[in-house]
């Protein structure tokens, strides 16, 4: 999976957990929580959906790695790759 594909996978999740938000212009290098209404429970939703949809575990210590789309891509792409995706 490419980094762009990883970003899209994360965006697909965000679209479902924040259905009222316009996510078409999210800046990849800016913290997600600075660009949209995203509380701690929503953040846990992202973690849960990564687990449910993709079998990816994100330990609590690594949550900061999911701050922006770019950091998501950096952190998650190797995990997708390790799973053969």
């Amino acid at each position, binding site marked *: 999976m490419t980094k762009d594909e990883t970003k899209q996978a994360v965006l697909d999740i965000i679209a479902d957990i924040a259905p009222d938000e316009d996510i078409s212009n999210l800046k990849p290098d800016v913290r997600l929580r600075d660009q949209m209404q995203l509380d701690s*429970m929503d953040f846990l939703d992202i973690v849960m959906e990564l687990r449910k949809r993709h079998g990816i575990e994100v330990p609590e210590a690594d949550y900061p790695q999911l701050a922006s789309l770019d950091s998501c891509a950096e952190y998650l792409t190797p995990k997708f790759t390790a799973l053969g995706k």
Partner: protein
Amino acid sequence: MSFQPPRIVITGVGLTAPNGNTLSEFRKNLLDGVGGIEKKEIRYMGELLAGVCHYDALKYQTKKELRVGTRAGSISIYCAREAVADSKIDFASFAKDRIGVYVGTTEHGNVETENEIYAISKFNYDTKYWSHYHNPRTVSNNPAGEVSLNLGITGPAYTIGAACAAGNMGLIHAAQMLRLGEVDFAICGGVSESIHTFGIYAGFKSQNALASHADPLKASRPFDKGRNGIVISEGGALYTLERLDDAIARGAKIYGEIAGYCVNSDASDYVLPNPGRQAECVRKALKSAGMAPQDIHIVNTHATATPLGDIQECQAIGEVFANCPDTYINNTKSYIGHCMGAAGALELAGNLPSFDDLTVHPTINVDDLDPQCALPNLVINQPKTVGKVDAILNNSFGMLGINSTLIVKRFVA
């Protein structure tokens, strides 16, 4: 000199029923004989009957709020917002810490728990897939708490668990809190999301108490010989209640006045009703209102269309209202099924307009009246315009033998 508690009046109504999403729509359908039962797929059980509400959930909530919250919370928010709007109170400037939210529920948490178990069943029951929203969704105060969040109410907001007597209980408790001076404005009544839990269906099915009929609209048939059980429904009715002086001071429209009430317990069985205790509940409510049976012009029955329960309630009503030529009896579940925690509150709402139009809505679907339910003045299949409607008595009874009777009278200054 005895203590005279403040008079409490109804100043707003918000509701959603399987056959209407406003009081006027609901009332029109009750007078026109229009019910609202349909077929619904129930998890593990297949196609069954349900009273489904079709209100606009996005009118007062975002998609995210709907995703995070519960159906009971959403119904509560819709009803609360509609009631507040109907009351025409200056809500924006009203002290939010002086508002109480009292929501009656039959149960809460079954739907959300079943959904989570179903969800983790897709992951070999691994609990790491269990939602972090489970606890806020299933705490028993959830429906009232969602109202407080949505409306920014910082006063007391909680539910009252009272099985199917709960709708009345919401109003009764609110009246008590207003009289105690705990709050200055109350949003109260009952809600139900029970059609979304297979467990309620399966429980009634195992009890042989679940209605079936080829025509969904004919399935809920209290007092008919062919009745064969309950149609489970969702819904809600929340009212705004105020002390009379406050309502008059702001020029509020007054739907009616809380005249009296009683809550008691059978202490005799988990599920079987007790007509003696029901009659006692009605008598005590009359006493608290300072009324005689003859003073009641409409008795709205709880009857759920179970073979035994209807007869027992008719025994209780027949005993109390034996010599009351101006007392008419009706039933609302024949249109909307059993809205569980919302039942008492919705059924009261359906009758409130009788103070204005002097018409008693009928109980429908009575093709063959059970002689054991043939109460005098039972209004069947056609509405009846009567000479006087000054007081409505509303019965709601629930499992574990909880009974509630609420009397609302025409407001007279």
